[in-house]
């Protein structure tokens, strides 16, 4: 079984660019990833590409071949759709294909065009990640679903909106130096508490923005990296995926994410590490409560304690386990199909010392990326390590 190296990563700025097509966004990200990797396009064996709402946002299905063309890659290409975990699922398959010897070089990534839909249109498009018959038709939105989990969490384990506010403040703080982030502005706890309500108890500042953007990653086998003398010090050493029932109401737990726990356990076992070895993580904080559920599912904090981790300074940049040093979905932005691959890119840059926030994790050897779909009916987790 071959080790999988991250040879190069590329990101567009995340933000508001309603005029940009996803093919243009992905072209930009892939150019950056190829330049970073030094791998020639001719060597690519496959493109695995994540996208969620292309049919709704730009009337475009069948995006795999379109994106291969945009990236200048002559290789079979497949689109992965797993809601907000689309490119996390693509990365996982890429890792497994390289490991089993099927492919040596894979371009994996994703893109999403969202802001052209406007707030109402994007809210509608995101809602289709839920059960149409039993959830969407009852008026449930994507923020509404996370609000149901937040209220359930407060009822079960305690905590209040102010605890969540510290998560948003932290992630905005982390994004200040990230030139690709949608928001590079500090906010205060009072800003979060006074913001307009979206779906109680969650307000505007508990929610990630609607974003356009793309991410691309060049993965290679260890043999390929060594034969070609690539500078690729970071490996994806563990991969895991978990699933749960589609509708939130059909789950055993309303305030936990078993799919993420299953994905994390599998990825840790695969890499031969445990939660205590994890130096930092990029987790799927589409809403502030989502970060709480994620860090508990990854066993970085005990169930019921994730809520206070940011407030207590345990997940801040200078804390024991920094979470979302990129700014997270909350401040970096959440172009849905690009998010999972962008997390791989951020963890790689943090581990290799090429990130504006690398100073906070200077001695780190192990980082984790956690990508969730819908109300975590899908989850992928990847462990990345610095290769000796």
């Amino acid at each position, binding site marked *: 079984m071959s080790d999988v190296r991250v040879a190069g990563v590329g990101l567009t700025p995340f933000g508001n660019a309603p005029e940009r097509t996803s093919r243009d966004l992905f072209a930009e990200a892939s150019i950056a990833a190829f330049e970073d990797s030094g791998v020639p396009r001719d060597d690519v064996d496959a493109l695995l590409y994540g996208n969620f709402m292309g049919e709704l946002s730009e009337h475009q299905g069948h995006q795999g071949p379109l994106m291969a063309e945009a990236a200048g890659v002559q290789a079979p290409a497949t689109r992965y759709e797993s809601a907000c975990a689309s490119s996390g699922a693509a990365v996982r398959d890429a890792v497994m294909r390289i490991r089993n010897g099927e492919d040596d070089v894979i371009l994996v990534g994703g893109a999403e065009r969202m802001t052209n839909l406007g*707030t*109402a*249109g994007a*809210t*509608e498009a995101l*809602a289709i990640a839920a059960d149409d*018959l*039993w*959830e*969407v*038709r*009852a*008026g*449930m*939105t994507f*923020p*509404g679903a996370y*609000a*149901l*989990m*937040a*209220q*359930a969490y407060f*009822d079960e384990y305690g905590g209040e909106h102010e605890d969540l506010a510290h998560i948003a403040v932290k992630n905005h703080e982390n994004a200040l130096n990230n030139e690709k982030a949608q928001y590079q502005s500090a906010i205060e706890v009072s800003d979060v508490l006074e913001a*307009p*309500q*979206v*779906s*109680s*108890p*969650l307000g505007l500042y508990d929610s990630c923005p609607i974003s356009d953007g793309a991410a691309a990653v060049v993965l290679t086998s260890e043999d390929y990296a060594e034969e070609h003398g690539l500078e690729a010090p970071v490996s994806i050493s563990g991969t895991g995926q978990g699933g749960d*029932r589609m*509708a*939130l*109401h*059909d789950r055993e737990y*309303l305030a936990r994410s078993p799919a993420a726990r299953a994905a994390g356990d599998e990825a840790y076992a695969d890499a031969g590490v445990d939660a205590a070895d994890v130096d930092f993580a990029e987790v799927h904080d589409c809403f502030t409560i989502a970060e709480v559920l994620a860090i508990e599912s990854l066993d970085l904090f005990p169930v019921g304690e994730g809520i206070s981790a940011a407030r207590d300074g345990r997940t801040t940049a200078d804390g024991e386990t920094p979470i979302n040093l990129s700014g997270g979905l909350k401040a970096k932005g959440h172009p849905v199909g690009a998010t999972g691959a962008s997390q791989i890119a951020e963890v790689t840059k943090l581990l290799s010392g090429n990130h504006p926030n690398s100073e906070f994790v200077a001695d780190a050897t192990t980082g984790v990326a956690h990508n969730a779909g819908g109300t975590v009916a899908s989850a992928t987790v990847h462990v990345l390590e610095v290769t000796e």
Partner: protein
Amino acid sequence: MSDTESETRDAGFDEWLDAAEEGAAYYLACPNDHGSLPPRRVCPDCGVTDLEEASLPETGEIRTFTVTHVPTPAFEEDAPYATAVADFGPVRITGQVVGIDTEDVESGLEVEIEVTVSETTGERVLGFSPV
């Protein structure tokens, strides 16, 4: 929406709403005591295929709730509205809470099924009203 589209029903789901409107809401029971909601041919818990309709308990209890201020376009005129997940014995269901001020909705509130109508679209909406 064309006439053909507006007449199209979702087998299983629309029948369930019809039944609920007549006060005869049901769930699907499997021989191993798992409950689930239609349309469904297989028990999602154990995989058996001999599911039978069983009467839903008359009342349920709200487990968690939210008041949505930013809706999808299909609920533009309805916002703000409360959405809740309620326990009805063998199944939990998501519905819109009606017949009560949104600020009075709370976990533990006892409710019954009341099929209501979206103010925005006129479409039927699965609702809960306090008992």
